[in-house]
């Protein structure tokens, strides 16, 4: 350091400037160098009079330096290397309501499965970091789905489309606008002939209005809609039954008996979050309520709804149709043409149960069942008196409902005939997702003027002339309807990161305005025209604030059933299946492929198979044995001349002669995470057999592909392992204490520790998880990942057993291999009062706090991993390699600033969201009060759509968690080890029909 002339005052800025002025090899060596200068000593004396007096008393250099370290850190002199000059800019005027460090919540809406769900997005310092369900929104009721939780990663995806592309070259919005204008002017001449629009399901009133206006301006223009996970069969079923499109709504809370015909209403249905909540409310056995509903499911592949069933049949898709016909026949419709189903006694018992519960049952069919099955459901619901009680009909929710397959077919044939001059595709990736026989990839290049609005540089973007990056929903203004009709509003939390545009913004170019309107103005002006509120500004602000328009759900509509039409359809259409059946289903994590580049979803273990990073050819163990196939064998599937290759996975509970393929994989242009993962089942999927087909040929190729599952042992091995406790409702009624009596547990005094030493008089944090209502949907898993900055480790690391979830869902099978009973068990850290992990850590990196939390101190952990070895629940996760992503710039705003990002070599685990507890504690202490019951929700608790997870303070009188701990069904997992976990479970109860023998379940 250059010697400086002594100055009377010591100027920090001066020091900084001096350090700034250092060039080349000159580094100041130590604090001593600075500390030796008389100016610094004087400064210290001035700035910290108390500290300086300690120094004046002649204390050693060491304590002086300790003191100096803090101030020097503040002065920015923290390193011995020259820091680059970075100007931080404090707010001159802090924006209203923005307190740095406090999160802001915004209500917005996310579209999935074609319909909107209300979400609350948490924003920190101006960028969103977490998305949860909006408790006020009727479609989510506060619950989350995996897609909702993972959507935040999609926002910050480094592989998003970042620029406008014209034929692969970077272009600008202005260039696009002018080219688009030119195209439109050309179309004005011929009234829009050759102008086609392809959208997904239209649920945005603004967009619908724009499209109406466009079709008025260009009468010859054509509008097509297509969604790969289409609800065409539902629509057609309704049209068959009622002569027109109607939407079917359900009230699961009032039901006693539910029959699901291949319907995954708890998970894939657009209103699944709400249905899950209602179903759980009817299922939960609390101390006051002693009744449960009963769920019968007939499906081809185990789904979440199937795992919740009291009685389940594993039937192929066509067999489900035969079952529904057989059931309808029992109630008087149609005749079964001699083909009896395997499950006569099952059906008889079911029919009797439905009859006994008139008006309190629901018969629901899945989107993949043919229209006739839906029509039969409508007929049955009517016959059983459910209509008006548990089932009701409304106007179709979507605007411009149409048969989407026919719509797309028309587009494709027009493209084939060179009748399409301009095609504007608003999202959806049709090149990947369209049925294989349409050959979209071949016909699309025929359209010279193709414009694609999409978030990714995907397969469709590669073949279109223009690619406009689409704004993520967290960057957009918009409106959308939920499945029940509620009009939800989208508001952005951040400016579009890459200049993305929303569909209304593109369509608005058709009606040129000066200045060009952005999405906010478009949506707002639409609603101004709607004259919905007497005071527009007030109503608008209220609705945007709430994220929805209150009470805008669709009203019930009385419909007249056309039984003759249904009967006619029954007679004219025969059911048959030959050979091996193949069914196509949306993937439980990746959906139709749009989430392929989302690392959280790729790594999220699928609900029943626990597969990650792959899709598989899912077959039953019986079929595998017949065809001599083992898990991982690559087979070639041939259907009507089309072929695809994929690895085999054996799934207990799969229908015997049915193979299930999940869509969404095998994408070629999907970013660094999704590219080349899995195989593309769309290659087999043709428009005449969108959901199921027969005569699949399987040939073994002799190669193997490693499939990675996070759980491979699903058998609890012996009844003495009382890890997962369950019983039937009758067991519970006969002896409410049967759960506690199932195994001897240590008494409270049975410990070497002094029970009086730690009394937990303050807060006593605990958690109760209801196994009865847990669906195994993984929402808690992804919510925890998002909240706690948990890294994605990749397929080969998951193969080694190093996945990093802090909460996992264990799925156990019980019973026969062909149709077992499934059970889900979420396992977070138990926060044991007698934690085995705390005993064995050599450096006190894991310890207990006075409120009962088992703490993990990351910066003290040396990584011996003894704590993991001693944890009987194996909830601890270790950073074996450098898993945390510090480098990708776009992820930096995504991390939750309240949670440390862990280094390599450090152990981590569930903390009961201690950052949320701290935040609530700070607020409560500022207000001089105790933390109240509903102030803290752990991430998993908040996400759970069925409220299966309850967290709270045992010392708060009458808190929910305290009451649940006294519930007779409450038990501790491995409690006999005397670990005294704070996380306990409520045992699962099933409600089997006594008429159905256990043998006949399969």
């Amino acid at each position, binding site marked *: 350091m250059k010697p400086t002339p002594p100055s009377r005052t010591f100027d920090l800025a001066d020091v900084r400037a001096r350090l700034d002025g250092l060039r080349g090899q000159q580094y100041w060596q130590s604090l001593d160098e600075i500390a030796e200068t008389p100016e610094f000593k004087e400064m210290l004396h001035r700035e910290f009079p108390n500290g300086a007096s300690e120094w004046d008393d002649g204390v050693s250099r060491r304590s002086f330096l300790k003191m100096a370290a803090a101030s020097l850190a503040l002065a920015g002199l923290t390193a011995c290397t020259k820091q680059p000059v970075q100007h931080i800019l404090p707010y001159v005027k802090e924006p209203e309501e923005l307190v740095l460090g406090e999160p802001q919540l915004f209500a917005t809406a996310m579209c999935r499965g074609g319909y909107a769900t209300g979400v609350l997005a948490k924003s920190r310092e101006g960028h969103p970091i977490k998305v949860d369900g909006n408790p006020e929104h009727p479609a989510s009721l506060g619950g989350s789905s995996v897609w909702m939780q993972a959507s935040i990663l999609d926002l910050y995806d480094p592989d998003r489309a970042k620029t406008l592309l014209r034929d692969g070259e970077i272009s600008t919005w202005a260039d696009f606008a002018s080219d688009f204008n030119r195209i439109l002017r050309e179309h004005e001449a011929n009234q829009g002939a050759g102008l086609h629009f392809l959208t997904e399901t239209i649920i945005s009133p603004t967009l619908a209005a724009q499209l109406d206006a466009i079709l008025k301006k260009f009468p010859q223009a054509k509008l097509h809609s297509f969604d790969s996970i289409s609800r065409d069969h539902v629509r057609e079923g309704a049209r068959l039954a009622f002569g027109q499109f109607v939407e079917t709504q359900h009230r699961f809370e009032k039901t006693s008996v539910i029959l699901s015909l291949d319907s995954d209403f708890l998970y894939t249905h657009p209103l699944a979050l709400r249905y899950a909540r209602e179903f759980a409310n009817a299922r939960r056995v609390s101390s006051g309520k002693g009744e449960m509903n009963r769920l019968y499911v007939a499906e081809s592949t185990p789904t979440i709804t199937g795992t919740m069933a009291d009685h389940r049949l594993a039937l192929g898709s066509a067999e489900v149709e035969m079952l529904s016909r057989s059931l309808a026949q029992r109630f008087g419709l149609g005749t079964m043409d001699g083909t009896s189903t395997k499950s006569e006694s099952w059906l008889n018992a079911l029919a009797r149960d439905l009859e006994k519960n008139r008006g309190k049952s629901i018969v629901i069919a899945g989107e993949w069942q043919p229209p006739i099955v839906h029509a039969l459901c409508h007929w049955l619901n009517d016959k059983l008196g459910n209509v008006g009680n548990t089932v009701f009909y409304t106007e179709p929710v979507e605007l411009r409902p149409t048969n989407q397959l026919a719509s797309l077919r028309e587009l494709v044939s027009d493209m084939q005939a060179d009748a399409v001059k301009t095609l504007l595709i608003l999202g959806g990736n049709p090149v990947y997702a369209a049925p294989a026989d349409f050959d979209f990839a071949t016909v699309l290049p025929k359209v010279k003027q193709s414009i694609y609005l999409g978030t990714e540089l995907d397969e469709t973007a590669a073949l279109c002339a223009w690619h406009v990056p689409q704004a993520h929903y967290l960057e957009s203004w918009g409106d959308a309807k939920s499945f029940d009709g509620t009009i939800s509003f989208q508001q952005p939390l951040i400016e579009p990161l890459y200049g993305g545009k929303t569909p209304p913004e593109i369509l608005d170019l058709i009606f040129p305005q000066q200045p060009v309107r952005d999405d906010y103005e478009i949506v707002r002006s639409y609603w101004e025209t709607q004259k919905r509120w007497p005071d527009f500004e007030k109503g608008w602000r209220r609705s945007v604030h709430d994220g929805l328009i209150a009470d805008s759900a669709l009203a019930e509509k009385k419909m007249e059933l056309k039984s003759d039409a249904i009967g006619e359809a029954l007679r004219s259409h025969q059911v048959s299946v030959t050979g091996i059946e193949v069914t196509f289903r949306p993937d439980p994590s990746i959906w139709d492929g749009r989430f392929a580049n989302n690392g959280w979803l790729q790594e999220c273990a699928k609900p029943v198979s626990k597969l990650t990073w792959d899709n598989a050819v899912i077959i039953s163990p019986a079929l595998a044995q017949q065809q001599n196939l083992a898990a991982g064998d690559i087979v070639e599937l041939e259907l009507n001349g089309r072929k695809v290759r994929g690895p085999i996975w054996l799934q207990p509970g799969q229908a015997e002669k049915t193979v299930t393929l999940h869509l969404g994989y095998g994408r070629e242009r999907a970013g660094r995470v999704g590219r080349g993962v899995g195989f593309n089942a769309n290659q087999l999927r043709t428009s005449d057999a969108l959901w199921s087909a027969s005569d699949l040929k399987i040939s073994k190729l002799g190669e193997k592909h490693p499939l990675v599952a996070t759980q491979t042992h699903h058998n*609890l091995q012996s009844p003495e392992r009382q890890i997962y406790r369950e019983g039937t409702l009758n067991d519970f009624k006969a002896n409410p204490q049967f759960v506690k009596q199932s195994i001897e547990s240590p008494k409270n005094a049975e410990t070497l520790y002094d029970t009086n030493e730690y009394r937990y008089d303050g807060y006593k944090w605990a958690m109760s998880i209801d196994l009865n209502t847990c669906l195994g949907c993984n929402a808690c898993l992804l919510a925890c990942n998002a909240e706690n900055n948990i890294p994605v480790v990749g397929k080969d690391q998951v193969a080694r*057993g190093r996945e990093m979830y802090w909460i996992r869902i264990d799925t156990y099978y019980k019973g026969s291999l062909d149709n077992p009973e499934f059970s889900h068990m979420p396992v977070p850290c138990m926060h044991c009062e007698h934690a*085995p992990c705390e005993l064995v850590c050599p450096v006190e990196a894991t310890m207990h706090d006075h409120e009962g939390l088992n703490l993990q101190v990351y910066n003290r952990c040396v*990584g011996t991993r003894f704590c993991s070895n001693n944890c009987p629940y194996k909830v601890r996760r270790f950073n074996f390699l450098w898993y945390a992503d510090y480098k990708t710039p776009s992820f930096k705003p995504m991390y939750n600033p309240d949670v440390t990002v862990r280094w390599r070599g450090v152990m981590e685990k569930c903390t009961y969201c201690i950052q949320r507890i701290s935040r609530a504690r700070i607020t409560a202490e500022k207000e001089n009060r105790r933390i109240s019951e509903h102030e803290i929700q752990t991430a998993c608790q908040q996400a759970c759509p069925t409220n299966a997870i309850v967290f709270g303070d045992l010392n708060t009188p009458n808190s929910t968690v305290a009451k649940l701990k006294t519930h007779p069904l409450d038990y501790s*997992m491995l409690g006999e080890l005397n670990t005294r976990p704070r996380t306990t479970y409520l045992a699962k109860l099933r409600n089997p029909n006594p008429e159905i023998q256990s043998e006949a379940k399969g």
Partner: protein
Amino acid sequence: MDTIQGSEPRMPDPSKPYPVTVLGYPAEMIGPKETYARVSDQIAGIPLKHPHPKFWLTCFAIAGSLFLMFCVAVGYLLFKGVGIWGINIPIAWGFAITNFVWWIGIGHAGTFISAILLLLHQKWRTTINRLTEAMTLFAVMCAGMFPLLHLGRPWVFFWLLPYPDTMKLWPQFRSPLVWDVFAVSTYFLVSLMFWYLGVMPDLATVRDKAKTKWKKIIYGISCMGWRGSARHWQHHQSAYLLLGGLATPLVLSVHSVVSFDFAVAQLPGWHSTIFPPYFVAGAIYSGFAMVLNLLIPIRRLYRLQNLITTRTLNNMACVTLVTGWMVIYGYIMEAFMAWYSNDPFEKHMMWDRAFGSYGWVFWGLMLLNCVIPQLLWSRRIRTHDLALFFVALSVNVGMWVERFVIVVQSLHHDFVPSSWKMYYPTKWDVITLLGSIGMFLMLLLLFIRYVPMISITESRELIALRREGQL
């Protein structure tokens, strides 16, 4: 009347190449023609004259390259992280801890021979104690590397040491890993002092016989100016006995503490009260096997059969057999208790050990540790050095496999079935293990080359005893 061992009447037996006692056991403690001068010359000649240079160099090259591989493996480990090995959750300890326990176990034979057999006046230990004590030192050095290397953040390993830090935070003394720190460091220090004290007079002998200037200086410094005066000898003997007494309890305590790494945990397969004695017996078992594996080739090559006699080999084999049976008792007890306790987790652990995914490892272990060593009942095998070598090799490998089974198999199937997984070692696991063996051999070869590998002092004592008619 007590018979001083080695003083039993000798019978010439034409069928045997060695003289035998009344019961037929090998009798010679030390070759019949040995004199003071012969013993000194023979032993001190090795560091001075470096016989068999080509053989030594070849072995050293192999061991050295393994050691270099070890350095590469360690470097890559520190660079990338512990994930280069095959460990995962639930099997968070794999080869590294297996190696650690194996090496420490091996070290116990040296201390057993040096200290316990010293206090028990077992004269046959005399000619082997120096080599085995050196073996202990090197084994503990190898062992001590693994608890450091297997840490997720090895650069802060010193947090396990009790030092007054600025946060006033001491290690967590209830953790067996902290006990390990004390046990292993104590063991290393005491063994080092004991060995060094013992070798000092011999280094002086080499210094006196050395011809070149540098050898005189180096050996002179290393023996700290030993003059052989009566005073020196008096101090030496008392200090040696004291250190021997200090080292004796270590034989039992160190591996008991190491066994606490497992016994204190509640994992089925680890949580077993038999572990401390079982591990100590196993340690001596594996240590003696390693001693035999080292001594037999060295003895042949350097023609030390007159000093390390058949009787010594026979006795070592007997100790091996006895400790082997203690280990077998441990196996039987574990299996019995698993059944008798009726605990579902214990029962499953035992069943899985024998018939699960690692079942083939377990049966290999039974073969190596229980079946093959029964050959040692036969005196012919015990006195035939090649056969003994292979039986000892079987035990050596078997004891490594035993630690592997304990560590990995118990972890891979613990309480909750959903977390059952497999452990597959990676190439880095194997390289690190082989590299540690290379380091051990390299150090041992250096020891053989430069330090008198048999205690000259004590061998001369044997001769003195014989002359006095007590041998």
